[in-house]
């Protein structure tokens, strides 16, 4: 799929539909096809954009020009003049008063293109994952061939560094830097491990890549292995992903048969062997050192760090651990160059991000968009708005360890730095969109319970802290909470974040912090008024 140069949105609220939005959309499809520009332009019906007096609206990005009301007969001019020749048609533009109010966000993002740009998911849902020929037809193993025959390992690492790619597992660590650490480390043998233990609730982006495009991960791991000097690799796949494991095994077998895996690959003298390792259902094994312990056959508990896996990883040897989505970015970067990649997304977080959309919205599923688009855009354009009559209250990003994003932050660009500045985390890319019927106390309780159950128990803050936080939240939900509890919850968040041994405990306090920072009034209502404003919590301990 080519990246789009323009994105066209057609409003599709009830009034727009009555006024012929469907015909406008169909004409757009036909006209762009007739001019041969259909594959350069992304057409999309968007939900209610908040204006109903000049509908149907046609919005063209990146210029952020808003046309309306557009009749089916006007479409030809818009397509020929604006989309084909690049000239705005002022007569058809909505009058400026239409640009106030809720619709203002559409023009506020002038110059950006919120259209889907599939790099990681380029082949998923297009090719046959069980047929290596299909992968080869879609530029498969081309990056590997280029790397092995034309580049030195140091050049590969420099290219990845120059691309600015950051780890997509949630923390956003610069990938090229990690590769550099492993390349520099001394060891009799080195390993590359793909972390495919995708266990964050609601995240399934890695599964889609593993099931739909398994060869891309194999190719990326080969490139990584060449760059850091590794000769063996493991893909640690979540135990529940049976289909993904099956397809990976098939793909590995095919790659071995064709000589992409094994000894002397591409006649370069470079050898690499790859294994699939199944997890057994523990969330903690997504933490890289616990994952390594698990591959070694030990109990999945995190190691103390330092030393880091980059120097003392699998079997004590230097080990590179990368997430599936991170790896899937590698072959395109080496095929098209770091400069191409750097131009997508935002300067500090280049590239795209895959999001899984769930919750109280009209359309759920999976999208891959440039870094830096906003939550509001995701909801309006890709999720086609909230369910009828519902209001957006909060979004939970990145499974349990992500943040609870209040509606006030829905215009913050979604990239690592903007989110960090706003005090929230991007996490793994799951977007659970919740409406006003969601109670934050109940949500926090569910999240903390998850950590309470999944904590491995090795370190005290995580083992006892999560248990205590759960007890306090349960009390609040039952109407027997005290105001002092809120201070204790804040202290628990601090202890978890600062004293826990690994990433699980360090992020377990996030829901507590977000709830106290953004929704304190709602929590206090549970305590002071003994009322759950959303009518969710049982309040069973409170006698009237």
């Amino acid at each position, binding site marked *: 799929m080519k990246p789009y140069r323009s994105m066209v949105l057609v409003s599709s609220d009830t009034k727009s539909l009555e006024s012929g939005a469907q015909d406008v*959309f169909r004409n757009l499809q036909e006209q762009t096809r007739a001019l041969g520009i259909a594959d350069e332009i*992304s*057409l*999309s*019906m968007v939900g209610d954009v908040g204006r109903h007096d000049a509908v149907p609206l046609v919005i063209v990005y990146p210029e952020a020009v808003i046309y309306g009301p557009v009749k089916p007969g006007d479409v030809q001019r818009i397509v020929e003049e604006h989309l084909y020749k690049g000239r705005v048609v002022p007569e058809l533009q909505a009058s400026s008063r239409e640009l106030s109010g809720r619709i203002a966000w559409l023009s506020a993002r002038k110059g950006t293109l919120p259209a889907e740009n599939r790099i990681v*998911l380029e082949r*998923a*849902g*297009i*090719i*046959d*994952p*069980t*047929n290596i*020929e299909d992968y*080869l*037809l879609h530029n498969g*193993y*081309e990056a590997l*061939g*280029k790397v092995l*025959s034309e580049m030195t390992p140091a050049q590969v690492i420099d290219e990845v560094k120059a691309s600015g790619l950051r780890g997509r597992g949630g923390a956003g660590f610069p990938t090229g830097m990690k590769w550099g650490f492993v390349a520099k480390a001394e060891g009799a043998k080195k390993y590359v491990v793909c972390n495919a233990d995708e266990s964050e609730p609601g995240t*399934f982006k890695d*599964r*889609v890549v593993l*099931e*739909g*495009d398994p060869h891309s991960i194999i190719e990326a791991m080969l490139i990584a292995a060449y760059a850091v000097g590794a000769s063996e690799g493991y893909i640690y796949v979540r135990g529940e*992903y049976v*289909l*993904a494991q099956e397809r990976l095994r098939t793909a590995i077998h095919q790659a071995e*048969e*064709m*000589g*992409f895996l094994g000894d002397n690959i*591409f*006649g370069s003298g470079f050898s690499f062997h790859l294994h699939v390792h199944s997890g057994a259902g523990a969330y903690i094994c997504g933490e890289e050192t616990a994952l390594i312990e698990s591959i070694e056959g030990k109990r999945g508990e995190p190691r103390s760090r330092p030393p880091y896996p980059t120097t003392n990883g699998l079997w004590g040897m230097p080990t590179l651990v990368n997430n599936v989505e991170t790896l899937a970015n590698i072959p395109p970067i080496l095929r098209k160059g770091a400069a191409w990649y750097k131009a997508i997304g935002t300067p500090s977080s280049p590239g795209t991000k895959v999001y899984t959309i769930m919750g109280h919205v*009209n*359309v*759920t*599923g*999976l*999208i*891959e968009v440039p870094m830096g688009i906003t939550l509001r855009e995701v909801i309006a354009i890709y999720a086609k708005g909230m369910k009828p009559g519902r209001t957006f209250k909060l979004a939970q990003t990145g499974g349990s360890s992500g943040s609870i994003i209040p509606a006030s932050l829905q215009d913050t660009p979604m990239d690592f730095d903007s989110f960090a500045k706003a005090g929230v985390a991007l996490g793994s890319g799951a977007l659970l969109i919740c409406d006003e019927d969601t109670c934050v106390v109940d949500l926090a309780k569910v999240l903390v319970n998850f950590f309470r159950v999944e904590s491995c128990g090795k370190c005290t803050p995580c083992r006892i802290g999560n248990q205590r936080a759960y007890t306090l939240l349960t009390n609040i939900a039952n109407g027997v909470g005290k105001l002092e509890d809120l201070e204790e919850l804040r202290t628990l968040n601090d202890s978890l974040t600062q004293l826990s041994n690994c990433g699980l405990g360090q992020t377990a306090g996030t829901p507590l912090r977000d709830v106290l920072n953004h929704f304190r009034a709602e929590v206090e209502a549970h305590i002071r008024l003994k009322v759950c404003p959303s009518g969710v919590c049982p309040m069973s301990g409170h006698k009237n």
Partner: protein
Amino acid sequence: MDKVKSLEDLKRIREEALKKRQAKNVSGQKEIVVGMGTVGIAAGARQTLKAILEYIEEHNLTDIVVRQTGNIGLDSMEPIVQVSLGEGEKVTYGKVTPEIARQIMAEHVVGGSVVKAFVVQS
């Protein structure tokens, strides 16, 4: 297939595969692609696929390739079936139950006219 020993080998293999595929498209080969990721399967893609294969068998149709693919991202529209006839444009259908699959087979794959009601609009 032979082992790939160099970048030239890779290019040659790809060109051969491409030629093979283009020849099929020019000869008007019909292709039906069913989304068989976890989401698709959970939504009933296996039954849909079975219905398509049964239809082909019942009607002794030839020159049709049925293949699977992963999840394309339109989870709420699963099971997804994509149909392309020869060099024509690919049409994407959503929420394809076995009954709808049979209708698509009869009207689109055999009859040549797109079943508009079930086409996924972006």
